[in-house]
């Protein structure tokens, strides 16, 4: 047996090369006009982006900003869909809108395939992951997820006020993803730091962000080496052994995909569970109806995903072009807001209302086109089980202090502090 030496010094040099991207001036502070100066990193956006998006949809409907080195924000469903489908003009080489653009030669693979990949490479990288994330594959994790949710509720026993984001929602995807990747379940607190580094604080200096990303890759490297020495039946061992075109994956592909699964698998579902519980805590009629009619939950859940879609993606414009009224420049960002698309009145009746028995709900919370969230079936299973267990165990609850609720800033939005009064 030959020793797998892909994860030695050369691999670290590959990571080093990634830091040779383009940097721009960092502009922070209050937004002067959302149509010409938008920023997804300001507190006003984190607190309540929907009125901002609704107003832009009426006025613009594609906002622009000079921040982040230049970017655009479409707010209509049809524009978001058109960009999601158009991989000729819009690249996924970077998907977090910050003040750093990775070097063009990173396309079509990108730092975290397949989310950062463009065709034709994208198809092959995605195909590797799909079988592990089908509805029937993730159904095998449902019993363990349900048992874990019950354990979390058991631990809330005796408290009148609990933090449903910190003490419930976040732990569910952390546990599931740790099991799938074969990471120690007790490393959850470290995952949280990695997630905050990747998705929040996009206006920190790029050097600081790269240094923080290095810590994530150091952690992943430790896990990879441990799996090389002790192979297991999990996604890490699967990726180490996987082949594309007759060759094992590049080490940066293995680690990049693991980073993607760790970050995107946790923050998103944590946000969806938290936002759903927040809605139910402040809407007694919806809460009472779901307690009385648990069979309505799968329908209601899709409505929570529509109205509180946690994920916004980004793209980079490939070449200078005039697109739907805007003079877009090569490497301009597109902030691809699935939440804004999901509240477009041209696409949805009563778009701004949460209608828990909405039967026709063609929402795009998991994206559209070739980058449809690979974990959507897993996310739906976790969200359904988390809500079923909570509503069965804690049918009567309300917001303890609406003003104390805090929301994650940036491209994944969900409650990070959610004080809930039980009973």
């Amino acid at each position, binding site marked *: 047996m030959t020793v797998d030496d892909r994860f030695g010094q050369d691999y670290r040099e590959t990571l080093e090369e990634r830091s040779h991207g383009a940097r721009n001036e960092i502009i922070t502070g209050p937004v002067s006009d959302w149509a010409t100066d938008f920023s997804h990193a300001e507190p006003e956006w984190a607190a309540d982006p929907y009125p901002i998006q609704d107003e832009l949809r009426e006025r613009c409907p594609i906002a622009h900003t000079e921040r982040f080195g230049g970017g655009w924000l479409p707010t209509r469903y049809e524009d978001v869909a058109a960009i999601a489908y158009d991989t000729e003009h819009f690249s996924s080489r970077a998907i977090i809108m910050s003040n750093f653009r990775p070097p063009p030669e990173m396309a079509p693979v990108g730092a975290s395939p397949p989310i950062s990949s463009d065709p034709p490479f994208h198809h092959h990288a995605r*195909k590797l992951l*799909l*079988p592990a*994330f*089908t*509805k*029937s594959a993730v159904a095998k994790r449902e019993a363990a997820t349900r048992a874990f949710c019950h354990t979390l509720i058991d631990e809330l026993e005796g408290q009148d006020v609990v933090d449903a984001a910190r003490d419930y929602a976040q732990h569910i995807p952390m546990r599931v993803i740790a099991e799938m990747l074969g990471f120690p379940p007790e490393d959850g607190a470290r995952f949280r730091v990695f997630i905050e580094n990747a998705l929040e604080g996009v206006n920190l200096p790029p050097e600081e962000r790269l240094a923080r990303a290095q810590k994530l890759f150091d952690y992943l490297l430790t896990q990879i080496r441990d799996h090389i020495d002790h192979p297991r039946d999990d996604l890490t061992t699967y990726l180490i052994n996987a082949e594309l075109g007759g060759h094992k994956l590049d080490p940066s592909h293995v680690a990049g995909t693991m980073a993607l699964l760790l970050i995107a698998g946790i923050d998103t579902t944590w946000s969806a569970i938290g936002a759903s519980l927040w809605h139910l805590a402040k809407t007694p009629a919806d809460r009472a109806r779901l307690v009385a009619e648990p069979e309505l939950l*799968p329908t209601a859940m*899709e409505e929570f995903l529509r109205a509180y879609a946690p994920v916004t993606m980004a793209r980079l414009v490939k070449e200078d072009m005039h697109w739907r009224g805007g003079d877009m420049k090569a490497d301009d960002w597109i902030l691809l807001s699935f939440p804004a698309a999901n509240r477009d009145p041209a696409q949805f009746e009563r778009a701004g209302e949460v209608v828990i028995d909405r*039967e*026709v*709900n*063609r*929402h*795009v919370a*998991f994206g*559209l*086109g*070739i980058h*449809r969230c690979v974990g*959507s*079936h897993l996310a*739906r299973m976790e969200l359904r089980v988390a809500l079923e267990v909570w509503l069965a165990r804690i049918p009567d609850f309300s917001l303890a202090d609406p003003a104390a609720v805090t929301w994650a800033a940036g491209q994944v939005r969900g409650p990070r502090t959610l004080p809930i009064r039980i009973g």
Partner: protein
Amino acid sequence: MKVRISSERCQGHGRCYDLAPDLFGEDDEGYGQVVGEGVVPPDKERAAGLAVSNCPERAIEIL
């Protein structure tokens, strides 16, 4: 009534096999497939309609 999935458009969201499991299933990669010949019995016409109107990619056709 018959249903058909465009494999060009389908991205594996799985809304069809969530909403109409008697008419649609998943393949090994999660893409939707019609069950059998795609014939919709009268009592499944409502489910077929829900699958069509909830597919984010508009990949399902009623023939």
